[in-house]
């Protein structure tokens, strides 16, 4: 008799091994043709639990992915996804990031939201989220994929912790009331050349919409966002491939700037 169950633990293990060894894997949708979005989130959850229990890592927040219309169209979905952020994924402004432990890295500029209150009510709305946001920071997210050649569809990226890798945060907190989140201009440069340009509106029309989607989703799955949690909004402009030695700086109007420095030699702090 044919079996319709997906080997959640096996798929989770293969993603962890790809992270550890750098040997990238085939798309999960090819290995498990019947895989659903729920299966993909189950695989992600399995690895989250493994990382917390077995590796001693701490959850510090969430990232939102697939927030650009063009990217959603490319993957054939009409909704974003989320992944978990762990303490050791974070880097400070200009702090060297090692290329070791990053898989096929790409970089994108985002808004980081830091919450001052729990969002543990049922179905949180815009007003709840606005009240819960303590401050904003400019951020660069370094995404990565354990799936060879970034050959991903929705289930592949969801299972792979929303293709997360690392992130760099700016250091000067700003209040929500001081930023035009929808129209804030964003430019990311490499060696002084603009390599990605956009604005807040590129992220679900307004990055706040992405945070509300996340707050509702996390409340619905019984893991509400908490005071102190960090939320990465999703990209304000196109992502760019990262090479060893690259230095990227992004300026987001109203939020200031943040710089990501990638080491040429394996001297920077590594992701565990």
């Amino acid at each position, binding site marked *: 008799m044919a079996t319709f169950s997906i080997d959640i633990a096996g798929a989770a293990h293969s993603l962890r091994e790809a992270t550890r060894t750098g040997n990238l894997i085939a798309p999960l949708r090819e290995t498990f043709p019947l895989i659903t979005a729920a299966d993909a989130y189950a695989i992600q959850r399995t690895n989250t639990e493994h990382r917390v229990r077995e590796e001693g890592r701490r959850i510090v927040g969430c990232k939102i992915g697939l927030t650009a219309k063009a990217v959603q169209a490319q993957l054939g979905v009409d909704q974003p996804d989320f992944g978990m952020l762990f303490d050791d994924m974070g880097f400070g402004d200009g702090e060297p990031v090692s290329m070791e432990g990053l898989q096929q890295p790409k970089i994108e500029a985002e808004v980081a939201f830091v919450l001052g209150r729990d969002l543990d009510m049922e179905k949180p709305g815009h007003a709840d989220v606005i009240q819960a946001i303590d401050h904003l920071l400019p951020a660069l997210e370094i995404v990565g994929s354990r799936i060879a050649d970034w050959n991903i569809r929705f289930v592949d990226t969801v299972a792979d912790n929303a293709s997360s890798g690392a992130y760099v945060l700016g250091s000067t907190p700003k209040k929500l009331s001081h930023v*035009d989140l*929808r*129209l*804030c*201009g*964003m*430019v990311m*440069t490499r060696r*002084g*050349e*603009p390599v990605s*340009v*956009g*604005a*807040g*509106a*590129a992220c679900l*029309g307004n990055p706040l919409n992405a945070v509300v989607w996340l707050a509702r989703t996390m409340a619905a799955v019984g893991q509400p966002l908490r005071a102190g949690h960090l939320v990465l909004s999703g990209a304000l*402009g196109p992502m760019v491939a990262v090479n060893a030695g690259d230095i990227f700086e992004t*300026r987001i*109007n109203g939020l200031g700037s943040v710089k990501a420095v990638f080491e040429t030699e394996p001297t920077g702090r590594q992701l565990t």
Partner: protein
Amino acid sequence: MNRVEELAEQLDAAARDAREVTQIDPEGHLSLQDAYAIQRASIERRVSRGAGRIGVKMGFTSRAKMVQMGLSDVIWGRLTSDMLIEEGMATSFVRFVHPRVEPEIAFLLKKPLSGHVTAAEALAAVEAVAPALEVIDSRYRDFKFTLPEVIADNASSSGIVVGPWTDPREDFSNLGLTMSIDGRVAHVGSTAAILGHPLRSLVAAARLSDAAGEPLQAGWVVMAGGATPAEWVKPGQYVSIEMERLGGAGFHMEN
């Protein structure tokens, strides 16, 4: 009539009658100098019919576009009074061949500006900045052209819409913007897409227009170049730009 005059007449007629033409130089024999001579002669014909010169437009100001076209410099075109579309009002689709629109930032000059100027000198000549839309409408069939051909065709320029003017002394190097069709966002970008800083486009405009013997004048408008890819416009659509801090502008494309 020499070859330059002949081609200028052909392109002027195509622009006037909103009629497409085949490529004038598909093999690429024209030099850039020839191309600008054709543009000048073509615009002179338009001016002799009563249109006024109101400024210049800059083109290929995004690094990506320059690389795509294999260019080392930006290009420019001449703005004439008949290209103005009043903000919030309508223009007619029949005026165009196959119009596209792109969001830009516009400069209004309070002083003449010519030659090799510094960014500081350029800024000192600016009275105000505004969100703007440019209708680009290549007269060539299928929007297909070589670099000399697009220059001869006035850098595809065919209409401008300018929003509210604002004091230029606050930083405008990275203003976020959206361009919408019928209220739906079609493109998102920032003024930083224009050579990294739109002021660099004005510096280039001063240099290039002076070299052509037509230095920038007080009261002229300089369109700095597209901040996002262009979007096709169909009859009946409303096109608008919204820019961080500077406000918006829009126009109706009527049948």
